[in-house]
């Protein structure tokens, strides 16, 4: 018996989140005398999963599955789970993971616990801690079905190496006709996404206008960070919706979140709560964000940010 994980790849290469899912499943497997099998689509570097405790990879090499198709992907994960007699399936929390998990849960007749942040507190019955109320609280959730699906919250467990002998098998699931197809994909290339980013630099209305985002992007560049924004900024059309962070936007679970000119409305703070370290730069010392942040600079963003960029460049030059 094994734990099945879905490991997402892009252009044939596994995403970092896949290694976190692997690390998490390997830790559960070790506690329960199980092994970890991964199912992946058109992935070239499956061997690297051995570093994170995966002993078998079912790699689906199928041109028809080169583009994401939720129904076909979910069917494939189901077939892999049946083949491995898996009673636990673990996915991450990317856009695709969140698309697939509830579908897989229904097909597998398994209870689904999303946004899970730590190892199970017990496995029989399965009890896991997950975030709720947009990170304003945790809920201890018990799964009462024989099988379970866990959605692991991003950046909640980290990568843990566990060198394991890993074999890769070609896996050919039965594929049905699908009435959905991808017409086009529009994705910025060479830009760090909020979902994958370890550092996020975010701007608010304090920046006064979209023309002032140059320094936000430059700061993000220096740090290898993704850019984000507050709700008013996206509502005003200064920045695309995809960058809106908060309760009705995206959650951010990065290692470092830098908020510039963002006052820190409760809905925004909820969305960034899962980030490990928060820095706020704001000229208003009364801004609520200072109560939620780890480090703060009270000052004019238009003076502080350019200086910070210069100093970080210096720091990077001396530390690489």
């Amino acid at each position, binding site marked *: 018996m094994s734990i099945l994980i879905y490991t997402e790849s892009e252009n044939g290469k596994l995403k970092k989140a896949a290694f976190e899912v692997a690390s998490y499943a390997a830790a559960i497997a070790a506690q329960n005398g199980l092994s970890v099998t991964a199912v992946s689509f058109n992935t070239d570097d499956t061997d690297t999963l051995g570093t994170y405790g995966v002993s078998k990879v079912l790699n689906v090499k199928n041109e028809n599955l080169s583009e994401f198709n*939720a*129904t076909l992907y979910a069917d494939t994960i189901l077939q892999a789970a049946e083949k491995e007699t898996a009673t636990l399936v673990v996915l991450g929390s*990317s856009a695709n993971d*969140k698309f*697939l*998990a*509830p*579908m897989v849960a*229904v097909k597998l007749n398994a*209870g*689904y616990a999303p946004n899970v942040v730590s190892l199970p507190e017990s496995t029989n019955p399965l*009890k896991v801690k997950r*975030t*709720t*109320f947009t990170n304003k*609280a*945790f*809920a*201890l*959730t*018990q*799964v*009462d*079905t024989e099988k379970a699906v866990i959605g692991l919250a991003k950046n909640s467990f980290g990568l843990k190496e566990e060198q394991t002998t890993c074999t890769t098998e070609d896996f050919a699931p039965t594929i049905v006709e699908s*009435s*959905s197809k991808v*017409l*086009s*994909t*529009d*994705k*910025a290339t060479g*830009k760090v996404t*909020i979902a*994958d980013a370890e550092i996020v630099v975010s701007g608010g209305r304090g920046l006064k206008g979209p023309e002032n985002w140059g320094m936000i992007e430059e700061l993000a560049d220096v*740090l290898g960070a993704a850019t984000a924004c507050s709700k008013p900024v996206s*509502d005003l059309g200064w920045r695309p*919706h*995809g960058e*809106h962070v908060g309760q*009705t936007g995206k959650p951010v679970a990065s*290692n*470092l979140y830098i908020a510039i000119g963002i006052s820190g409305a*409760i809905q925004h703070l909820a969305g960034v709560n899962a980030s*490990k*370290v928060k820095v*706020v730069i704001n000229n208003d010392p009364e801004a609520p964000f200072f*109560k939620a942040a*780890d*480090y*703060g*600079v*009270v000052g*004019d963003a238009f*003076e502080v940010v350019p*200086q*910070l960029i210069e*100093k*970080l460049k210096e*720091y990077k030059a001396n530390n690489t």
Partner: protein
Amino acid sequence: MKILVCISHVPDTTSKINFANNDTEFDKNGVQFVINPNDEFGLTRAMWFKEKQGASITVVNVGTADTEPTLRKALAIGADEAIRINATPTDGFFVAKQLAKVVADGQYDLVIAGRESIDYNGGMVPGMLATLTGANFVNMCIGLEVEGTTAKATREIDGGKEEIETTLPLVIGAQKGLVEEKDLRIPNMRGIMMARKKQLAVLEPEAVEAQTQITSFEKPAAKGDVKLVSPDNLDELISLLHNEAKVI
């Protein structure tokens, strides 16, 4: 086109989150409830289909009688009729099963549910409902056009978007972007008066067992005070981020 919009009744986004009964349930004391924002984006898009393409809109909620003002608000915004499944929504699977029955009985072409409710953030009802009813599914939907039985949907992906062609019956997980914030409608007096006369059917639930249960809640540990760094001493900030926080 028959549209079903699934409505969650959730605490307003500014609510303080507290728990009662030994931290086993959400404390509703003094909390304002609203239409789940993701559902409201969906309802607003449904209104577009109603006005431009003559669609009919039914709104549905799985909840006890105290959710009815939220359904009435959806009627005041412009939905034609409402259904309340008279049950406490114990988990996402339970809710999806109840909705699947409504979908099967009503033969809806398009089902719109918010990507997630802002209270429990499960994000599971739309995907479960689509799978239970055998409908196509597009999650995190930020654009939707329907012509005949063909739908073109845009979904948000990590770092971009993707356009999908699919067919009805279809379930979408709605979110901001499907309509803009400024397009949201505040019910006017006429809408509110008309909503009183619209049908709100109360149906008893199917016998379904929940698959999961929340045994307790807890709040995150209190945070320490912010460390302030002078704007004239940004080297210190870099040093703190490197040596203390270890994030750069």
